[in-house]
């Protein structure tokens, strides 16, 4: 979420697409209701293939075909740019004024850039000057100033000419002796035919109301209606346009917020769907505003936390990618969000080893490497090591760097090993202890150019030591979750630890998953229940363990919610019976692995580091010394003093501040402290910097409170200060919101007292025109980060040079702007042939192994056109025999793969069995009555007979109970041609039933590897009528 659940109160329009918050995020509806039924009378607009319970409450509902989200949004954009613009003069005038920066509020007045020599300058376009940090060298800055630097978006940036533009136009300008190269050329107005806005308009021109309605299966008037809703609820039509934000609670404060969930992401075009949201909201000025933004409704209380932790195969904590297999330290650190580390005036890559000047994400990685692969000395006073005989060439009276950090006990000799002349401080040389430098005194005994040998104590790693620790970092990516099960099936992966997950229900195309799990030599499942995964069919010699984990209420730690708030969850009690907290299990794992020699490569490397060697036991140095648990003993015996103590839900003190906490409360806080400390103090997770800060004086500003108010906790996840309810501030001192407690992301310092935002793309504006396929990182901004380009472009119809009138080339600038593509399996093959499917990877979007069969019914097309996809070979090749689009859904009573809720009698009573939602038209054609049990068949599997034998239970796979629509088509849950089934069920627990994921296709989004759960083809047969069961 760019905003927060609590900020929903401030919206004047909710655009819910691909989400069903009424059932899947019920707590959010209190906020939605507050805005809808309050003075604001906010609107609720729902776009979804299914008339969900959310849609039943909506002011406007539009039904679309599964997988046509981009077409719909592009259609809305086109409507806004054309008819909407023409019909709403106020909106049009303000739209132009905002994008043209024609008002002082809409251009940037303090962006920092870096000149070619590496010096920083704060660019001040408003006055046509720049200032260095030293406040010298004022002067005109040339062309940029006259246009005003855009504050929000690149809509006025000019795009380089040519058939396939890869970048903006760039220019160089000179101010005095300072040269700034690679600046994007900014057009005077968005009327410029070369600018990004013009390109975007060109791109969406194709998506007229009629074209869009044909793709989406809605009415042309629906596009207009949604477009008008957006126009009526955006920055351009809000009472605070061109004024400083007053209060978002004002009745005529307008902001539309987008709420989305899996209905948007679980497509082969998932990432592009969200990019289209970003473009729409940025165009309308809804980003960075209270009540606006793009809000991903996370499915679990700590999904945001798990992604913060980088538990994906291609990420490390803090959303950094894995270092490449050959990446040097500097190669990896430079493009992280922070400061440019090369080229650099002080000599290139050396800069990357200076912790004091590394920026946020860079410094976090530095701290992570030093604390995860060695004790982190910097920032841990009292821990240091002695460096013997560092050779330094003294020249003139130039300061020479000993370490990029504090040095002490310096001893200088002319020869190694304390031989030759013993020089004297002050007389022969001077030491700057804090800066870690030594300087020759011209009048002393050291001659100019002499090599001296320096022995000193330091808390700071040298560049060579950093390189040795970095060498321990695993390089490259592992397997994604789709590939993993195929590797198991092929025998390349022989053991798996499944921790708090239930892939035997949740992964698509279960045929492969089950075969993969069965083939493993070793399967370890860590869970609170015997899940489908733990009880799956295994090969005769396979070994399976189920380790009893504690439930989440039995262990302490931080959780990060959808809105990025980090909050501390205390444990309600110690774990039941022999179950253990996840932290204890993990640390015991680590200890056992260390004992078995798995960490010998680490201790071997340390042995080469001489006096800097952290130790001889990897477990002791990396875990026990840092987190307090020895890996074998009584976990509950671990204690620490907790600065904030523990309070119960009603604020009563359970353990006083400063008192001892034990078990997971203690270990979790040890880890949290390491991650959340200020970066300068060694915090290892840049995203959470200052979430644990002993300096509690970071105050709520006097501008709000009348007097400054301090934090009341050191561990800010434990902060429970609930003032400023429902304002733009979003409870600024409740928990801690990354990044640096920012409550509304991208707010451009317009939200009073919320921190100013520079968390944007390399060009310090929202970058809509991404570059495909290569990322060109241009070295001109002071703070910048590499951004990742999306990997996918449509397989067909893309051509930026052909006019719209060429009916075979619908996509202009595809890959730069989102373009409609069809799902891999689609009933509209005519559209698939025109728009293509979404992949740069071709057929590889459906992973293959030796058993795979891909089939096309159109030999003239490439093999991945019109595929039906299967691993089993028992399928019908007639595409027409799979007439329905299968889309998966969730219900309020069950949770994810179901181990918790299907073992809870209350939930099982409410929804005992899985069902299928089907339109009355289709039901009549198939001869299905309400309550019948039906079998669903896809090319991959069926939902009854093929499932028996894959588990230790029988009789559970009865298919799905039909819920046939009643009444008018518009009031039915699904449209003709679409069937919806919930996917929470499996073969274990109190409530069992057929799995949707036996049927689903494992094609996926090329960027995120999220499977296309929301669209594949199927057919239906009746199994039994309800009465016979």
């Amino acid at each position, binding site marked *: 979420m760019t905003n927060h659940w609590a900020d929903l109160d401030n919206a004047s329009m909710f655009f819910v697409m691909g989400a069903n918050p*009424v*059932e899947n995020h*019920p*707590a959010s*509806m*209190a906020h939605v*209701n*507050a805005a809808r*039924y309050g003075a604001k009378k906010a609107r609720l607009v729902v776009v979804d293939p299914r*008339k969900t*319970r*959310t849609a*039943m*409450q909506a002011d406007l509902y539009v039904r679309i075909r599964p997988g046509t989200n981009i077409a719909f949004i592009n259609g809305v954009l086109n409507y806004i740019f054309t008819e909407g613009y023409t019909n709403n003069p106020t909106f049009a005038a303000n739209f132009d004024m905002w994008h043209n920066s024609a008002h002082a509020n809409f251009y940037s007045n303090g962006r920092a850039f870096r000149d070619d020599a590496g010096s920083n300058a704060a660019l001040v376009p408003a006055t046509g000057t720049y200032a260095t940090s030293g406040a010298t060298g004022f002067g005109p800055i040339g062309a940029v100033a006259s246009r005003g630097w855009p504050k929000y978006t690149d809509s006025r940036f000019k795009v380089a000419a040519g058939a396939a533009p890869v970048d903006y136009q760039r220019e160089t300008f000179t101010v005095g002796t300072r040269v700034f190269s690679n600046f994007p050329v900014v057009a005077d107005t968005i009327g410029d035919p070369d600018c990004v806005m013009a390109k975007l308009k060109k791109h969406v021109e194709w998506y007229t109301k009629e074209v869009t309605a044909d793709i989406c299966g809605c009415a042309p008037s629906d596009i207009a209606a949604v477009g008008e809703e957006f126009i009526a609820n955006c920055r351009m039509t809000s009472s605070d346009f061109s004024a400083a934000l007053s209060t978002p609670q004002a009745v005529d404060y307008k902001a539309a917020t987008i709420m989305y969930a899996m209905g948007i992401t679980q497509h082969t075009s998932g990432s592009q769907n969200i990019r289209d949201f970003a473009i729409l909201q940025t165009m309308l000025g809804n980003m960075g505003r209270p009540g606006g933004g793009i809000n991903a409704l996370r499915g679990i209380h700590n999904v945001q936390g798990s992604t913060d932790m980088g538990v994906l195969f291609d990420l490390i904590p803090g959303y950094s990618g894995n270092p490449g297999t050959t990446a040097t330290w500097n190669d990896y650190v430079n493009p992280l969000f922070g400061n440019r580390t090369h080229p650099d005036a002080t000599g290139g890559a050396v800069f990357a080893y200076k912790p004091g000047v590394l920026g946020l994400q860079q410094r976090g990685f530095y701290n992570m490497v030093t604390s995860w692969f060695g004790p982190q000395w910097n920032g841990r006073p009292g821990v240091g090591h002695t460096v013997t005989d560092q050779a330094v060439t003294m020249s003139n009276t130039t300061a020479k760097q000993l370490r990029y950090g504090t040095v002490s006990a310096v001893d200088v000799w002319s020869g190694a090993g304390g031989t030759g002349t013993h020089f004297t401080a002050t007389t022969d040389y001077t030491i700057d202890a804090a800066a870690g430098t030594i300087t020759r005194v011209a009048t002393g005994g050291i001659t100019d150019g002499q090599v001296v040998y320096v022995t000193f104590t330091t808390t700071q790693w040298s560049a060579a030591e950093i390189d040795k620790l970095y060498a321990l970092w695993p390089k490259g990516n592992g397997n994604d979750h789709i590939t993993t099960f195929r590797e198991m099936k092929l025998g390349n992966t022989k053991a798996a630890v499944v921790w708090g997950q239930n892939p035997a229900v949740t992964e698509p195309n279960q045929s492969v998953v089950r075969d993969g799990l069965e083939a493993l030599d070793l399967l370890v499942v860590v869970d609170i229940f015997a899940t489908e995964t733990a009880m799956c069919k295994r090969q005769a010699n396979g070994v399976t363990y189920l380790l009893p984990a504690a439930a989440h209420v039995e262990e302490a730690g931080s959780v990060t919610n959808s809105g990025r708030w980090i909050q501390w969850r205390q444990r309600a009690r110690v774990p039941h019976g022999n179950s253990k907290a996840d932290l204890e299990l993990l640390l015991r794992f680590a200890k056992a692995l260390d004992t078995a020699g798995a960490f010998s490569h680490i201790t071997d490397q340390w042995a080469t580091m001489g006096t800097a060697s952290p130790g001889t036991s990897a477990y002791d140095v990396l875990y026990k010394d840092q987190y307090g648990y020895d890996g074998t003993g009584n976990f509950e015996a671990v204690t620490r003093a907790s600065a904030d103590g523990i309070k119960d839900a*009603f604020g009563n003190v359970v353990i006083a501040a400063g008192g001892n906490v034990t078990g997971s409360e203690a270990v979790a806080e040890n880890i949290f402290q390491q991650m959340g400390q200020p970066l300068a103090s060694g915090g290892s997770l840049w995203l959470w910097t200052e979430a644990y800060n002993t300096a509690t004086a970071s105050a709520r500003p006097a501008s709000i409170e009348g007097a400054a108010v301090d934090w009341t906790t050191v561990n800010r996840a434990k902060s429970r200060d609930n003032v400023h309810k429902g304002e733009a501030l979003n409870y600024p001192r409740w928990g801690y919101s990354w990044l640096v407690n920012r409550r509304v992301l991208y707010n451009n310092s317009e939200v009073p007292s919320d921190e100013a935002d520079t968390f944007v793309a390399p060009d310090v504006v929202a970058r809509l025109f991404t570059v495909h396929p290569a990322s060109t990182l241009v070295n001109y901004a002071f703070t910048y980060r590499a951004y990742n380009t999306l990997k996918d472009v449509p397989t067909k119809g893309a051509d930026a040079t052909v006019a719209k009138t060429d009916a075979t080339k619908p996509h202009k600038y595809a890959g730069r702007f989102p373009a409609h593509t069809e799902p891999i399996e689609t009933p509209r093959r005519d559209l698939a042939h025109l728009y293509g499917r979404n992949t740069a990877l071709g057929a590889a979007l459906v992973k293959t192994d030796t058993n795979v069969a891909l089939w096309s019914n159109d030999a003239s097309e490439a093999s991945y056109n019109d595929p039906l996809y299967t691993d089993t070979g028992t399928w019908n090749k007639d595409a027409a025999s799979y007439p329905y689009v299968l889309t998966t859904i969730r219900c*309020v*009573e069950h949770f994810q793969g179901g181990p918790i809720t299907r073992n*809870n*009698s*209350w*939930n*099982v*009573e*409410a929804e*005992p*069995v899985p069902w299928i939602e089907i339109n009355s038209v289709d039901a009549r054609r198939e001869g299905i009555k309400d309550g019948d049990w039906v079998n669903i068949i896809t090319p991959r599997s069926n939902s009854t007979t093929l499932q028996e034998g894959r588990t230790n239970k029988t009789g559970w796979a009865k298919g799905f109970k039909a*819920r*046939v*629509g*009643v*009444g008018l088509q518009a*009031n*039915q*849950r699904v449209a003709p041609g679409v069937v919806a089934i919930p996917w929470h069920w499996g073969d274990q627990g*109190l*409530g*069992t039933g057929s799995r949707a994921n036996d049927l689903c296709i494992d094609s996926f989004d090329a960027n995120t590897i999220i499977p296309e759960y929301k669209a594949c083809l199927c057919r239906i047969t009746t199994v039994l009528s309800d009465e016979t069961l």
Partner: protein
Amino acid sequence: MANVMAIVQDADKCMRCNGCVISCKRTWKMKGIVPADNKPNQKVTSNQRVVIKPQRRVDTAPFIRYSCWHCPDPPCARRCPWKAIVKDAAGPVYIDPDLCDPAKIDPATGLTCGRVCQTDCGRGGYPKIGAGSSDPAYLAPKAWKCTMCYGRAGAVTPALTAKYGFALPSKEIIAGVPETEHQPACVYTCPAKAMGYDSQANIISMLNTGLGNGSIVSAVGDGGVFWFSRKYMLISPKADPFVEDHVSPMVSSLLSGPFAKAALVPTLVAGGLLALAARRARIQEEEIAAGGEA
């Protein structure tokens, strides 16, 4: 004097998340009925005292909560020979499980109670006789129903408070209504904030003014439970929420026969006209009752 308390449901906000149902079960230690036990039925039973039912078929809004109405003059309390059912001055009608005993024989008359509370309920039968909870003390059949969580507020039945724990604190304390310090579990839980707990007088005043701005179009209720909506509700909350469960199978079996098919259209036409006439008559009565022109 104590306020008379009541629960009010905003039917426009209810989304049938079943949070109130599960909260009720959790509070009163009732287990769910799982397929292994018998066929689940989603009814008001001795171990399910509140249910949410859609007013239209196939699970679409508006959703109405059904539980004991806490009648102003409850027939169940009048007829119980053991005086186990009490209409409290503060509104709730509750059954004292220590006094209720369906098997008990009256020494004077030689009769049992005859389970009159179930059959005499004017609202469709909310007191249900059966096991009350997973608490061993209440496995023997007794009459159970919603108590508005009254025992848990600590004011009345100390026996219940001891068994079922203390009341949940309030999320919203209403000025002049000290009883709102403790909310019923269903109201406390409701994530959509679709339920309120207030004095009956305040609720009626709110309904009469239409939330203060006349936005309420339809409202209904009595005793301790009220409903309202900003839309015209096609079907007002039924006394028996399960009428369609009985009627629908009957209708479909009728429809499947040859005679029914022939008779369907005339029957529907006649029935529709009758329903229309009845509706007109009722609306007229209401207008008269409201002081309008007849």
